[in-house]
C-alpha cells in the first residue's frame, strides 16, 4: 500500500485544492498517468502519479484544499516499482513562525517614575566621555555639561582640571569639593513635592536587637570575610517579611488610587559621592535569605555608586528603607518617596539601659520610625508593622 500525496509544484506552493479525480478506485494506474486535477494560485494543474498500481481509496474529495504533502489517495501496489519512497513528513513547506513571546511584565503598574533620580534633566554623554570618566574613576554624573548640552571628552577633562584629553593617559586622583548640581536639585524638588502632597504621620518604636546582633555575630563566625553579613541585609529581609502583613504600607499611590503590591521590593537608600541620594530596589526582599540579600547589596551598592543603575531598580520599589548607620543619630524621620506610601527609617544601633524582667540591663537597641501616607493608612498600621518587625527580629534564626 502506498500513498499518493499533494505534490509540491513550486518553491512557494503551500497548498492546493483538489478539483477532480480522473481515475476511480479500482482503476489500474501507471507511472506517468495523470490521475487528478489540482487548482493552485497559478491555475489548474494536472498531477501525475509516479508508480504503477491500483487506485485503492480516495482520501480527499473534490473541493477540499489540502497542504502540500497531505495524502490524497491510497494506492495498492501491483508489481515492482522503483519510486523513491518519500520521507515521512509532518509539515508542508512553510512552518508557522515562532510566536514572539513577550518577556516584559512589569512587576507593578507605575505610570510615573518615582521622582528621585529620574526627573534629572536629560544629560547627553558621549561614549568616549563615559569611557574616559570610568578610566579616571570620575563619577560622570557629577561632570558639568558643555556646549550643546553634551558631556564630551572636553567636559570630562575640565572636571579633572587636566589639559586636553588626547595627551593625558594616566588617571589622576579626584580632588573636588561638594558641588551642588542637578541631582541635588532634583532630590529637593522630589522631597518638596512629597511634603506638599503626602500627609505624613510618624510612628516610632525602639527595638531590642540584642538577640539579633548576637545571632549575627555567630552567623559571621561561620562565614569567610567576604561572605560576612552586614546587619542591613537580614534587616531588609525582616522589614520585607513584616510588610507582608501590612499591605497599606507596601504599594504605590497614583492618580488618587492606591494599589497595594503583592511583591515587596525594598528600595535601599544609598548615599552617593558628592552628596546625592538614591534608593534602588532589592526585588522580592521577603523571599531572600540573608545571604542572598547580602549578595544583592554587595553587587548593588558599588554599582549604583558608580552611576550604573537599572531602570527597574528605580521604578520598582514598593517601600523604602533608610538606615542611618553606625555612630549617627538615635532616630530618623524620613520623607516618603512618591509614589510609595511609606518609608522606614532606622537610627543607629546604641547600647542603652533596658528593663528586662523588672531589672535594668544593657541592651543593643535601634529606633525604627515608620512614616506613612495618611491617605492610605494610619498609625495603627504602622504600629502593627513595628510590632511584627520586632517579633521577627527576636527570632533571627527564622530569617
Amino acid at each position: 500500500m502506498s500513498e499518493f500525496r499533494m505534490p509540491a509544484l513550486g518553491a512557494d506552493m503551500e497548498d492546493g485544492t483538489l478539483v477532480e479525480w480522473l481515475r476511480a478506485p479500482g482503476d489500474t494506474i501507471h507511472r506517468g498517468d495523470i490521475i487528478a486535477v489540482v487548482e493552485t494560485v497559478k491555475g489548474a494543474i494536472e498531477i501525475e502519479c509516479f508508480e504503477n498500481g491500483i487506485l485503492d481509496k480516495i482520501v480527499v474529495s473534490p473541493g477540499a484544499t489540502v497542504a502540500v504533502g497531505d495524502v490524497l489517495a491510497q494506492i495498492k501496489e501491483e508489481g515492482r516499482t522503483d519510486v523513491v519512497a518519500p520521507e515521512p513528513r509532518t509539515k508542508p513547506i512553510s512552518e508557522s513562525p515562532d510566536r514572539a513571546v513577550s518577556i516584559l511584565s512589569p512587576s507593578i503598574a507605575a505610570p510615573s517614575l518615582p521622582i528621585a533620580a529620574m526627573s534629572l534633566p536629560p544629560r547627553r554623554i558621549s561614549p568616549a566621555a563615559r569611557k574616559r570618566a570610568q578610566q579616571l574613576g570620575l563619577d560622570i554624573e557629577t561632570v558639568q555639561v558643555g556646549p550643546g548640552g553634551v558631556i564630551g571628552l572636553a567636559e570630562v577633562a575640565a572636571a579633572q582640571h587636566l589639559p586636553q584629553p588626547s595627551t593625558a593617559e594616566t588617571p589622576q586622583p579626584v580632588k573636588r569639593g561638594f558641588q551642588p548640581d542637578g541631582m541635588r536639585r532634583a532630590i529637593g524638588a522630589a522631597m518638596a513635592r512629597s511634603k506638599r502632597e503626602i500627609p505624613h504621620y510618624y510612628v516610632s518604636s525602639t527595638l531590642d536587637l540584642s538577640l539579633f546582633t548576637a545571632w549575627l555575630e555567630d552567623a559571621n563566625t561561620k562565614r569567610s570575610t567576604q561572605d560576612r553579613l552586614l546587619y542591613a541585609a537580614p534587616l531588609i529581609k525582616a522589614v520585607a517579611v513584616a510588610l507582608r502583613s501590612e499591605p497599606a504600607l507596601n504599594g504605590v499611590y497614583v492618580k488618587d488610587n492606591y494599589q497595594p503590591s503583592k511583591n515587596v521590593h525594598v528600595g535601599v537608600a544609598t548615599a552617593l559621592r558628592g552628596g546625592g541620594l538614591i534608593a534602588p530596589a532589592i526585588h522580592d526582599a521577603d523571599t531572600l535569605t540573608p545571604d542572598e540579600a547580602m549578595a544583592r547589596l554587595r553587587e548593588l551598592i558599588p554599582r549604583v555608586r558608580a552611576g550604573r543603575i537599572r531602570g527597574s531598580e528605580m521604578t520598582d520599589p514598593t517601600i523604602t528603607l533608610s538606615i542611618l548607620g553606625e555612630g549617627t543619630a538615635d532616630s530618623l524621620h524620613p520623607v516618603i518617596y512618591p509614589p510609595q506610601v511609606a518609608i522606614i527609617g532606622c537610627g543607629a544601633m546604641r547600647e542603652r539601659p533596658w528593663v528586662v524582667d523588672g531589672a535594668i540591663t544593657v541592651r543593643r537597641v535601634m529606633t525604627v520610625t515608620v512614616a506613612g501616607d495618611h491617605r492610605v493608612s494610619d498609625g495603627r498600621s504602622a504600629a502593627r508593622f513595628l510590632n511584627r518587625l520586632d517579633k521577627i527580629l527576636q527570632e533571627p534564626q527564622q530569617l
Partner: protein
Amino acid sequence: MKTSYDGVDLRREHLLELARQMILIRCFEEKCAELYSVEKIRGFLHLYIGEEANAVGVMQALEAEDAIVATYREHGHALARGLPPTEVMAEMYGKAAGSSRGRGGSMHICDAAYRFYGGFAIVGGGLPLAVGLALADKMLSRKRLTCCFFGEGAAAEGEFHESLNLAALWKLPVLFVCENNGYAMGTALERSEAVTDIYLHAESLGVPAQTVDGMDVLAVEEATRLAAAKVRAGQGPQFLENRTYRFRAHSMFDAELYRDKAEVEEWKRRGPLVQFKAWTVDRGILTEADFNSLEGEVEHIVAEAVRFAEAAPLEPVADLAKDVMTPGASETEARS
C-alpha cells in the same frame, strides 16, 4: 525524418548511442519531476522533455576541448556532454558532491573538466560570455569553438543582438544554437516577435543561419557537423535555429494556460524518441528489444544517481563564505 543524412554515422553502434543518450535524458528528467514534487529538489526546475534531440544531436559534433554555454534548462546538455549523472543529481539535491558543489542547483550546473560553463538564469545572459570565450580562443590562436545554447525568447533581449553582432564583426568561433520551442515561459513566439523566423534575425546581424528539425536527432547532428566545420575553418560564427517543442510546462509550477493540450499531443506524436525509434526499427538497424534494454539500463543509471545524491553529504554551514573570492589571492577574506 529524412531518408539520408550527410556526414552522420548511421550504423548501429552510433544510433544505439544516440538512443541511449536521449533515453537517459528523458528518464533523468522524469525522475527529477518526481523528486521535485516530493521536495527533494527545490527552487526552480525546467525540464528538457521533448527537446532531447537537440542537445544529443549537437554534442555529437563537439570536441572535448570545445566550450559549452547553456541556459537554466541545461540538464540534458550536461548529460549529453558527459557530466556524470550522479554529480548532476547531487547538484539538484544541493549536495557537496554535486557538479557545482551544491552551490548552483538546477539552473547552474557547471563542470570545468567538460568546459561546461553552466547554467545561466538570466535569459540571454550567457551569449556575451560565449562571445568572450571565443574571443579568447581566437586571440590565443586556439583551435576550438564555443557552443552557445539559448531559447528563442533570448532573441528579444538586447544581448542577443549585441552578441551576434560582436561575433560576426570580430569573426569569432561561436556556434549559436537557438532551441526554438515556441514559448518563452508563457508567451508564444508570435506574440513577442514581429519576425518569428529567428534565423532571419541572425542573418540580419551577419551570422549565417540554418533552420533544423529539432525533433530529428539525425538532422540536428547533420546540421551541427556542417556548421561546426565552418566555424572551425575560421569562417566566423554560425547559427542554428532548431525547431523543437517542450512537452512539459516551462517549469514545474506552471498551469500551461497559454497553450492547447491538443497542440502538445500533436507534438508528442512527433517526439524525438517516437520518431527515432520508428526510423531505426523500420530500417532494421535497431530493434524494439534494443530500446527496452536501453530503458532498463538507463533506469539503473538514474536510480544509482538518486541513491548517490540521497547519500551524499551537505556542505557544512561553516563553509558558507567559501569560494566567493579566490582564497589567498589577496587579503579580502581577512576583513569584511
